[in-house]
């Protein structure tokens, strides 16, 4: 068996270099400092960014959104959706109910809607009587006759010396 014959391990030709304690310590410390520097910078940057985001970022975002809202309200055509021209749509006529068998065939046809004629709805015109009424009101307001003296109705005040 080859593995039984090589049970004795041969000593290495050159002795392994054991690191010095001080070298090992300084190396470990330097690696630790390097890691501390990166972790510390990252954590401080995160804390500062959170601070500035809460102090300036969110109020700025709020102001920006409010300004955008007001601007869109002032200029409504920006917020209104663009109206597309409606294509000619073929509207199917409403279904004609089947004639009842007991109903006579000469039933009156449904009346079509007729737009009102301009003579039926005359345009607005100035009422001529309003001028006389307004002139009478103005004459009453311009009457500057002295008002009659007021009589005191309070009996308690009239009995005081």
């Amino acid at each position, binding site marked *: 068996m080859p593995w039984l014959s090589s049970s004795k391990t041969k000593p290495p030709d050159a002795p392994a270099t054991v690191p010095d304690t001080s070298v090992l310590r300084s190396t470990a410390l330097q690696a*630790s400092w390097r890691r501390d520097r990166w972790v510390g910078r990252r954590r*401080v940057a995160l804390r500062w960014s959170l601070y500035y985001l809460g102090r300036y970022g969110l109020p700025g975002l709020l102001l920006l959104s409010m300004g955008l809202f007001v601007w869109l309200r002032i200029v409504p055509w920006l917020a209104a959706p663009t109206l597309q021209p409606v294509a000619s749509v073929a509207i199917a006529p409403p279904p004609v109910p089947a004639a009842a068998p007991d109903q006579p065939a000469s039933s009156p046809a449904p009346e079509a809607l007729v737009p009102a004629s301009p003579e039926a709805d005359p345009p607005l015109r100035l009422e001529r009587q309003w001028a006389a009424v307004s002139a009478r009101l103005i004459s009453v307001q311009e009457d500057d006759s002295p008002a009659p003296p007021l009589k005191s109705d309070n009996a308690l005040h009239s009995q005081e010396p």
Partner: protein
Amino acid sequence: MSTNPATTRLVPTERLSAITSLIAEGAEFDGNFQTSRDQGIKIDGRLKGNITFESGGTVHVGATGVIENTRIEADYVFIEGKIIGTVIARKALEITGSATMIGDASYDELIDMHPRARVRGKIEYRGDIDAAASN
């Protein structure tokens, strides 16, 4: 390539370079650490327990380090990670912007705290207030 330790304002750089013990990132240590020598420890992993330096001592909590249920007592304490417990710095206490500290801290001489540090607890000056005011 030599890398300098973290930029500090109060804790001397040579104190951070003289760290003798290290709990690496990803490692967990459950127990107390105590010594009477002026040494230092850096925690990059997770520690549950107390750290006591009877004299001198530097404690550096790395940015990835987390210490829970602790009472840390040393001359210099430099915090970049997270601490839940009590901290006593006999000389200087420095809390960086990446640090989170939940618990009370007390110091005898100097303190420096970054404005973005997260501290929930009481910070107490243990020195003589009247003597400090007269100076």
